[in-house]
């Protein structure tokens, strides 16, 4: 077993990527060079990683990995997911830091009182959550079939399909959103977490596609199913992050979205001075006035 060139390649590509980005961000190279270079380097990186993983699977096929080695790799992947969890904890920290005690510039309210029209969490995002959670179920189904001894690739196909559907949904949501990443801390946090989550969904989907390919060729057996287990773990991690993001950012974060305009309206209609909440009479009166 000789030396592998892939780690050095990964490092060199990473250096080039970072230098490219650093120069590009500071406008020392043209925009095309920045994004073109980044694209080329990312593709190169994926090729090198692919070669690395290919040699990994070749080693498995040849029988070089003992059972303990396989255990090692599973633990290593679990630790990698652990580190990813803490990365997201850092990102969520930013969100909670800003949202729990909204600053004066935001009007001491979250969502900020000016300029942000939050999304309705019970519309498109709810569909997204449903899609992703069901893809978690189909991923479990895939693992169960492999454990039972037959490679039912439809299960993984459903997972991949739902994952792609989710990504498309999110893209549409981004396009139709009423705010951008530049719109203050609300926009920054929102796109930060959903954006990084989206990148992880893409990575997880690619891993799932690889497992799908393996299942189509019937390569898994109950004693050789490490990669699909890892892939499904990763997919579950991605799913849980999204559920957390949905609950905290979409629902909890936008909690005031129905109330705030309502409160403003109530102030305007001077209903507030008479009682705490308008009753049916006030609503009827209001309807009468606008009629």
């Amino acid at each position, binding site marked *: 077993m000789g030396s592998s060139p892939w780690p050095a390649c990964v490092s060199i590509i990473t250096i080039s990527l970072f*230098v490219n980005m650093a120069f590009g961000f500071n406008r020392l190279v043209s925009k095309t060079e920045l994004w073109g270079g980044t694209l080329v380097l990312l593709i190169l990186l994926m090729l090198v990683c692919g070669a690395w993983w290919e040699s990994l699977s070749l080693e498995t096929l040849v029988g070089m990995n003992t059972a303990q080695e396989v255990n*090692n790799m599973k633990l290593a992947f679990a630790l990698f997911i652990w580190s990813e*969890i803490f990365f997201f904890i850092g990102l969520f920290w930013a969100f909670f830091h800003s949202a729990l005690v909204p600053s004066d510039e935001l009007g001491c309210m979250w969502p900020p009182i000016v300029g942000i029209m939050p999304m309705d969490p019970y519309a498109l995002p709810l569909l997204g959550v449903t899609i992703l959670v069901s893809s978690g179920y189909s991923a479990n189904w895939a693992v169960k079939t492999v454990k039972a001894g037959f490679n039912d690739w439809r299960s993984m196909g459903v997972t991949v399909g739902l994952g792609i559907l989710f990504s498309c949904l999110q893209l549409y949501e981004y396009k139709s959103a009423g705010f951008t990443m530049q719109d203050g801390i609300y926009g920054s946090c929102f796109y930060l977490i959903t954006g990084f989550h989206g990148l992880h969904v893409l990575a997880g989907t690619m891993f799932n596609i690889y497992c799908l390919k393996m299942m189509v060729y019937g390569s898994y057996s109950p004693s050789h199913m490490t990669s699909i287990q890892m892939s499904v773990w990763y997919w579950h991690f991605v799913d849980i992050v999204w559920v957390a993001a949905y609950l905290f950012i979409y629902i909890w974060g936008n909690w005031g979205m129905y109330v705030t305009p309502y409160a403003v309206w109530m102030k305007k209609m001077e209903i507030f001075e008479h009682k705490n909440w308008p009753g049916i009479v006030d609503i009827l009166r209001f309807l009468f006035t606008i009629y």
Partner: protein
Amino acid sequence: WSGVFGLSLSHCMRIELSHPGEWLQVGYMYHSIMTMHAFMMIFFFVMPTSIGGLGNWFIPLMIKIKDLSMPRLNNLSVWLALGSLFLMCMAFLSSGGLGCGWTMYPPLSNSEFMDGLPIDLAVFSLHMAGMSSIAGSINFLVTIFNMRMGALFFMSLNPMLIWTLFGTSILLVTSVPVLAAGLTLLLLDRHFSTSFYYPEGGGDPILWQHLFWFFGHPEVYILILPAFGVISHILCRSSAKLHVFGKIGMSWASMGIAWMGFLVWGHHMFVAGLDIDTRAYFTAATLMIAVPTGVKVFNWLATIFGGVYSLKHSHPSTFWAIGFVLLFTIGGLTGVILANAALSTLLHDSYYVVAHFHYVLSMGAVFAIFGGFWFWFPFWTGMVPRKDLVLTHFMLTFIGVNFTFFPMHW
């Protein structure tokens, strides 16, 4: 599988940046040099040597296996570390230099004040170093967890170095991603007009401080834990004992320091305007970490006690180890003083803080590295160094660091 992925030993990079120049580079260069001094020492000297170097060499030896699990990952860790060094040097040498301090607080490091290449390169460099650390730590954790062979049951795992490297790896795997998050936010702020650290947009520079120090405090334990392991080894060898006194207690103390290290980051933020109760909590938690650390010091003293010593015959590394115990304790005591929020406020921005961390680092981590180097030198090279020369090394260093840093307490 445990084949010739030979670059793992090149983790033993000995890169030292001497103290900032006195006469020549003044003005803005001073900030650059100071920043680079910190980055170099922490990320490219202590960490690669004690974690990469010692870990790669000794973990396989001490748990009696041939090589670390996943040598390719190890290799990746080396290459990423080298790349990180390259980027950091690029940052230093590019226009303006890196004048933001190793803690890189916004708004100074944000685009309003330091728009330009150096900080971006430094951010990317730290990203790479972080990836390198995570990769290495995953490797160590997997190896230690899974590949203990023979009669080394987990709880009575003998070599202290294994325990401390285990703790170090857990710290790395958990805290580095939070640094990565903070760095990413800084990068986005600098170039994508986000508002994470800009109050005008609702953001908060304190957020950076939280994220950075949530990494930063475990980082300093990462720097010192392997040193603890080395000292245990040297002392028990010097005292002609089989193992350090109270080895189970020592293991628990190391784990305790590692775990509690996550709970105290706020003591770097005592003047940032935190709530009084928050400061009270962090004071209390920080003071509590002194307990397991004290346990370790007492156990080392107990190891020395009853040992056979003779100045003429003792190995030079004994001096390093005893010097460590003495000077690290002094540094720890100044740390206990700084743990108090009220005193810390008074001592903030003073040389007292500099004295504290240089005592625990230059005299803690570095003494352990030098001591370990001379302790294991015959083992690594098969040659025995001349004792008087090694002792001279020790005396000069000892006198030097003490003269440099002791006066800073005033």
